[in-house]
């Protein structure tokens, strides 16, 4: 499984990197939406995208909107991950923009995230 993780918090990205690599998956990390889009321009071979919401330069929703307009990339499933509060509205927004799931990081362990990603491969 080849995973793209878009998140600016290194504490989180390092943790998820370890888990995915430990489980034998390929994971690429970028720290904001814009870098993610640039990467997607060249490489559309990802099975699933894990997307944080709050990021500098380009946030998760903006990334999602732009990504859905990209040929060949729009079919890559997206799982949104957040630790924001009052996320009901954000959840609806994300789902409406095409995300498959909207997960709260603090409620899930790294292995739960891997399991969630596996569903879309």
């Amino acid at each position, binding site marked *: 499984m080849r995973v793209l993780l878009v998140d600016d918090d290194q504490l989180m990205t390092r*943790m998820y990197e370890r888990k995915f690599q430990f489980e034998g998956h390929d994971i690429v990390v970028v720290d904001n939406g814009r870098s993610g889009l640039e990467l997607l321009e060249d490489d559309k071979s990802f099975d699933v995208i894990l997307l944080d919401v709050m990021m500098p330069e380009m946030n998760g929703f903006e990334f999602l909107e732009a990504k859905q307009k990209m040929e060949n990339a729009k079919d890559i499933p997206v799982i949104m991950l957040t630790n*924001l*509060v*009052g996320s009901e509205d954000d959840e609806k927004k994300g789902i409406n923009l095409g995300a498959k799931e909207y997960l709260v*990081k*603090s409620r899930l362990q790294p292995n739960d995230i891997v399991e969630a990603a596996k569903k879309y491969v």
Partner: protein
Amino acid sequence: MFYFYTYSFLAIVIMTYGAINYPKILKLANKSSHKSEWKIAFGLIIFTLVSYVTFIILYVFGSQLATDIITISIFYFVSVYVLQTIDLLYKTLKESFQKNNDINKYADHLEVMVQKRTQEYQNKNEEIEKTVNELTDFKKAMLSILEDMSNSEDQLKVALMESDALNMVSQTITWSADWDKMVSYVTKVIALNMEAPKSAIFIYNSDSNSLVAQKGSYGFTPKEIELLDVDTDESLNGIAYKTKTVIQTSDIQSEKNACPQKVHFDHSKMITAPVYDGKNIIGTICCIDPNRDIKSSKVKDFYEKLSNVASVIISNSKLIKESEEQAILKSIGEGLLVVDNLGNIEDINKIAENNFGIKKEDVLGKNVAGLLGFHELETLLSDFGATYDRKHVEKMGHRMECILKDEKYICAAGKNSFHKNCRGCNIFHVAAQKKMNLAFTKTTNFTFSAIISPILSDSSEVIGQVLTMHDVTKEVLMNRAKDEFLSVTSHELRTPMTAVMGNIKMVLDGDAGKVDDMMREYLNDAYIGSQRLLALVEDMLNVSRIEQGRMQYNISPFDIDTAIKYVFNTLKGIASQKNLYLKPLNHDCVKVVGDENKIIEVITNLVGNALKFTEGGGISIGYAIVGNKLQVSIADTGIGISKEDETKLFQKFSQVNLTLTNQKGGTGLGLYICRQYVEAMGGKIWIDKSEPGRGTIFAFTLPLA
């Protein structure tokens, strides 16, 4: 011979005439310009004399011819003389006529002069008459003063009374508009002045068309005063009220109508006068059984004066009261808006004016619905009106919060506010749909919480509403800041905690290599500690959102079995660790309405608590349909809860046993959140049964789908 005598006679006549007239002619000639006449006359006389002498001589010595010539010449001269005399006479007459004319003119002039003088004299006369009149008046005045002086006793009393009245006015002011005291003082002064045992003030009541005796009236017991009220159409006081005159018993024929019979007094002796508040008549003031002879007009005047003074005092008293009320309205630190039953604005104080950015004179009489763009409020206000009795009304304190947004007020009401039957009234956006009639100049956001209370009349009828506005802008801003703080804090707390827990979990799972038992034990504690910390953060966040009213519920029908199964799956690990059973009692696939995730949280919480406090046996979940609700029961075989603790259980931070709390972990917020969730979904949560040492049954209900 004939000739002789004739000539002699003529000559004598002419000469005599000439002699007689000569002085006259002479006199006239001297005065006038007719100087030639007298010479002619004189010549005539001389000539007549000469011719007469000649005639005599001729006649004596006789010649007929001579006699004839002389006779003819005498006739000629006589004729001339006569003609001249006639001419002279004419001229004299003419002259005298002219003179007469002059006299007439002079007479006219004199007449004018006389008239003028007469007028002057008349004027003088009038002046004199006036002076005389004045003197007469003065005399009269002097006489009246003398008369008055003879009535000095009354005068003195009036003076005393007036000074008394002044005293009353000043005293009334210091009483700060205590009506009863004012009534008692005024009536007392009147009674004492009239030497009467009783005196009363009546105020007109339009509802009953009667004059109501005021408390404190002099000489009456409170019970008597209650019986004293009189009909305006059938009483002496009523006549005084309607005719606005001082009336005394002697003025009317039928004396039995003077006062009702309920209270005994000699109503044949009574005097009553109208009482004014400014220009408006408001009632009467009457004096009963006066010792003074009320038939005398002086007493009537005196009484009128008394009632005038009373009117001034009453007006002042009311004025003080009103200005006091106004002052109170003004100085209240909260916005006040008073509306009648139709929602028309009757009064608004300065703070409310500022709050709304409006001016009192622009909004008085206008409908509050138009002012606030707030039609539902109008309905609510009128709803308060007719249907509530005093008991209900007194209990009501209706609270709502309004915020100015896009020039419209959006108002939200607390859970238990407003109409009982108005479930949808929790939050309403009235202003959002209605365009406001009045432009608000205020641009800054103003948030107020308002309490609408009904205004009750004496007969407990709702006659209007008063809206008290408390500016909560600062509080709202602070709350917002608190929310933001919480939200940021929790985000910042959640992320590192997630990393702590995730990494510990990976180590425990052996991702980083083999973990021996001791390491596992330590790491397990670290993991549980992190979990508790994270749970606390979550709970605090939830509480904050519940209390802000910002908790969102996704209400939809769901299968209760699915929720129970989900919880059991999550908790079966813990249960098996403690060797406890988890037993679902039903599998009936009943659908309920609510937020499935939150109900899962509720069940997780209840089952989780049960697992924590149970050491042997287990937990079973059953449900049953009760009315239009589904009742879910969670029974454990745990330590149980004592009666006094039961009530505390659903409050914030209210774990029953602190030692146990520390042992078992928990935030003390779980059951509080459960209750808020269940109630928000239209259900109830309670402890169905509990026996210390034997176990507890928790129950909650949910609406059926």
